[in-house]
């Protein structure tokens, strides 16, 4: 992809970054649930 201005470059890279941020935030929450959903809710902080 060709970029002619810095504005073009940042519009492209930040556009992808914002999509990745949303995916990551949802993905990390889902991954945490995957890691911990088999544990009993004993009120203790599991880490």
């Amino acid at each position, binding site marked *: 992809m060709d970029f002619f201005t810095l504005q073009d470059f940042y519009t492209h*890279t930040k556009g*992808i970054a914002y999509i*990745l941020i949303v995916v990551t935030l949802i993905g990390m929450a889902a991954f945490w649930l*995957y890691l911990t959903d088999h544990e009993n809710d004993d009120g203790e*902080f*599991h880490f």
Partner: protein
Amino acid sequence: MFKLKDVLNRSLLTPFNIIAGVIILIGLVITALRFFGGLATVTNLSDYNPWGLWIGFDLLCGVALAAGGYVTSAAVYIFGMKKYHSAVRPAILTGFLGYALVVLALSYDVGRPWRLPYPFVVQAGTTSVLFEVGACVLLYLLVLFVEFTPAASEWLGFRRARNLVVRLTMVLTILGVILSTLHQSSLGSLFLIAPSKLHPLWYSQYIPVFFFISSIVAGLSMVILEGSLTHRYFADKMDETHLREKEDVVFGFGKAASFVLAAYFAIKVFGITMDNNWHYLSTGYGAWFLVELLGFVALPCLLYSVGVRDRNIKLIKWTSALAVLGIMVNRFNVCLVAFNWHLPSSERYFPSWMEIGLSLFIVTVGVAAFKFIVTFMPILYEHPEYKTPHA
């Protein structure tokens, strides 16, 4: 309690002692050659490649893999996860020995070790990242030494000194976390001044963040790996508490490592995105980058998570070895493989056998020191006279 005479009564000609003795003898010869003959006598370093194996492995890997000290003490004393308390002393010991050996290795690389304190008194300015790294490593080594002294004091019977340091536990832990955050990231910052030398896939404005986050993974994985090895070779020196808490440590740290690896994977992808380096992935360096990212970040992340969910302790232990290897691959890539990637192969660096020999020598000294300390000092068991909570 293990007494010196009990150990001396045993034969010293064990396979470990023989192999370690040979490596140490060779190391001493290389030491003499390096300090009397200079760097050119023992290394393949050049003006193009001033940082070689001793920086890439001994320093960068050494510092990252010694991160278990601050990670474990922060978990136990700051975040209150007391069930991992038995892992603190082995982690602090590993950290202390790791940093001590980093300084030892550094003195081989820079030479004239008596000038190591010079940056604090004779220097051009405090804005250098290298100065910050030097200052933090020195201060953190002191902090680790003080954190380690309760075990040595209990062994030597210095009750007052031991009690004084135990009262300082929280302050020392906070200092350790601050200093580690600073220098673990700054080791990455060192490469910020070399954008034209480091391959774009490894170069990023976020490289300090990459180094810091990966050091947490290294610390967590090293605690699991070291715990597995000590359980295998020093089980007779572990008391009931250590044996009981061992599984909690493996599962808890495995879970944390999995989650941090997932975050690390995400920010590495951000690194590619922000510099728009996607097109490099189809090159040879890109293939190697993908091996690192998928094989040594995504794979251990997945294996840790499966191990934690299935309560598979063996899988987590093997994964910790893979994760530790992954950290080493990353540091090698940044410092050696992807560095000077523009140069023709005839100008590229490959360590001499003596550089590898000296690195082996330093690791062997560390293992021998670890063996000596866990044999005599209360690292894997509670001293019978100090059953109260301690550092």
